[in-house]
C-alpha cells in the first residue's frame, strides 16, 4: 500500500468503515510505518476527545413537551400508518422468514462461536438487568485481581485504564461456554462494559460483532480469550479492546 493510499484510508479505518481486506492491508502498512502509526493514534485521540468533551445538546424538556403536544397523535400515528401499509407484505415476509428459519434450524446448527456470542451477551444483559454488575466493587486492580484469582483456576490480567477514560468498577464470576469465567466491569460515561476472560486455545474468527444494539469485540492473547460486550459505540469499545490487548501483553 502506498503512503498516499494509507493516508486516504486512515480516517475510514479509525471510523471502522474499511472492509476487512483493506483494513488488514492498512494494518500491515501501519506495522511498518511509525509515522503512520502516530497519525492513527492522533486521530483516535481526537475522536475520543470529541466524544468525551464536546457538548451533546439534548432537547430541553419543556421544548420536547410543547413539540409533542403540537404534533397530534405523535405516539400512535406512525404505527398505525405503517401497520396498514406494510401489513400484507410484512405478513408474507414473516411467513417466508419463518420457513427459512425452520429450514436453517434443521440444516445448520449454530457455530460454537455464535453460541458463545449469545451466551456472553445474555450474561451481560442479565447482570445489567439484575443491577448486580459485579461481585467485588473496586476501582483498584490490586483488589479485583486477587479476588478473581482466589475463585478461579486462572488469574486474569486486570489493567488500570482510568487514565485512558475507562474506569474499572469491579469484577465478578460468571459461567460461559461450560466454564467459570472472570468478568471485569469497566465504565465509560454511563456505559457499562463487561470484559469476559477465560483460558482458551481458540482464535476468534470475527473480531467484532453487533447484536441487538450491543457491540461485541474479542481477541485472544497469551492463551486467554477476551470478549468485550457493551452498548458503547464500536469505536470506543475497539479502543478498549486495543488497550487491554496492549496491557495484557506486559
Amino acid at each position: 500500500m502506498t503512503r498516499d493510499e494509507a493516508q486516504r484510508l486512515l480516517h475510514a479505518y479509525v471510523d471502522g468503515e474499511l472492509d476487512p481486506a483493506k483494513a488488514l492491508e492498512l494494518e500491515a502498512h501501519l506495522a511498518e510505518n511509525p509515522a503512520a502509526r502516530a497519525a492513527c493514534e492522533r486521530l483516535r485521540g481526537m475522536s475520543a476527545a470529541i466524544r468525551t468533551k464536546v457538548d451533546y445538546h439534548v432537547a430541553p424538556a419543556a421544548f420536547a413537551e410543547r413539540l409533542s403536544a403540537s404534533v397530534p397523535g405523535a405516539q400512535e400515528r406512525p404505527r398505525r400508518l405503517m401497520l396498514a401499509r406494510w401489513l400484507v407484505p410484512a405478513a408474507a415476509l414473516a411467513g417466508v422468514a419463518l420457513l427459512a428459519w425452520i429450514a436453517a434450524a434443521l440444516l445448520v446448527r449454530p457455530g460454537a462461536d455464535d453460541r458463545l456470542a449469545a451466551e456472553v451477551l445474555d450474561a451481560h444483559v442479565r447482570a445489567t438487568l439484575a443491577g448486580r454488575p459485579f461481585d467485588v466493587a473496586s476501582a483498584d486492580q490490586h483488589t479485583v485481581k486477587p479476588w478473581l484469582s482466589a475463585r478461579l483456576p486462572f488469574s486474569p490480567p486486570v489493567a488500570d485504564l482510568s487514565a485512558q477514560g475507562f474506569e474499572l468498577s469491579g469484577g465478578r464470576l460468571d459461567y460461559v461456554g461450560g466454564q467459570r469465567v472472570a468478568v471485569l466491569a469497566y465504565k465509560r460515561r454511563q456505559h457499562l462494559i463487561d470484559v469476559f476472560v477465560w483460558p482458551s486455545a481458540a482464535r476468534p474468527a470475527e473480531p467484532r460483532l453487533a447484536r441487538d444494539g450491543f457491540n461485541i469485540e474479542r481477541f485472544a492473547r497469551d492463551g486467554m480469550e477476551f470478549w468485550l460486550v457493551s452498548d458503547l459505540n464500536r469505536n470506543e469499545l475497539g479502543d478498549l479492546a486495543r488497550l487491554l490487548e496492549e496491557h495484557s501483553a506486559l
Partner: protein
Amino acid sequence: MLPHLDAAYNLARWITRNDHDAQDVVQEAVLRAYRFLDGLRGEAKPWLLAIVRNSCLTWLQVNRPADLAGFDDRIVEAPAPEDEGPEAQAMRAFDRRMLNEAIAALPAQFREVLVLRELEDMSYKEIARVADVPIGTVMSRLARARRLLGESVRAVSNAAGI
C-alpha cells in the same frame, strides 16, 4: 417523547449555534417530517436528520445568509502542514470549552459531519443520507474537518503556551 428528538436538536443546535434558533428549526422540521411521513423509506433517524438539516439551511438562508458560506464546497484547501506533531497532547490538555468553541468555529459542512460521526456515531452511509452527498464526500469532509480542528487546536494551544 418524539423519536430521535435529541439527535435532531443536537444537530440543529450545532448548525445554528444557538438554542433559540435550534428550537425554531427543529419544530418546523418535525412538523414537516410528520406531513411527509409517507416519504419515509428505510431508517427513521437519517431520514429525520436530513429534514432537520434542510430546515436549518432554509432557516439560515432567510435569517443568517452569511453563515451559509460554511456550506460552500469551494472552500479552498489549505496545504497539509508538514509537522503534525503535538495536537494529540494538546487535545488531551484541551479543556471542554475550548474544544467546543473550536468545533463551533469550523465551516458548517465540516461541523455537521463531525457532529454526526462523533456525537451521533452514525456510519458514513447514514451521514451521506443526511447531508445528501456521496459517501466519498463524507470521507473527505471528515478528513478535512479533523485536519482543520487539529490546526485550530494547535494554534490556540500555541497561543496559550500549553
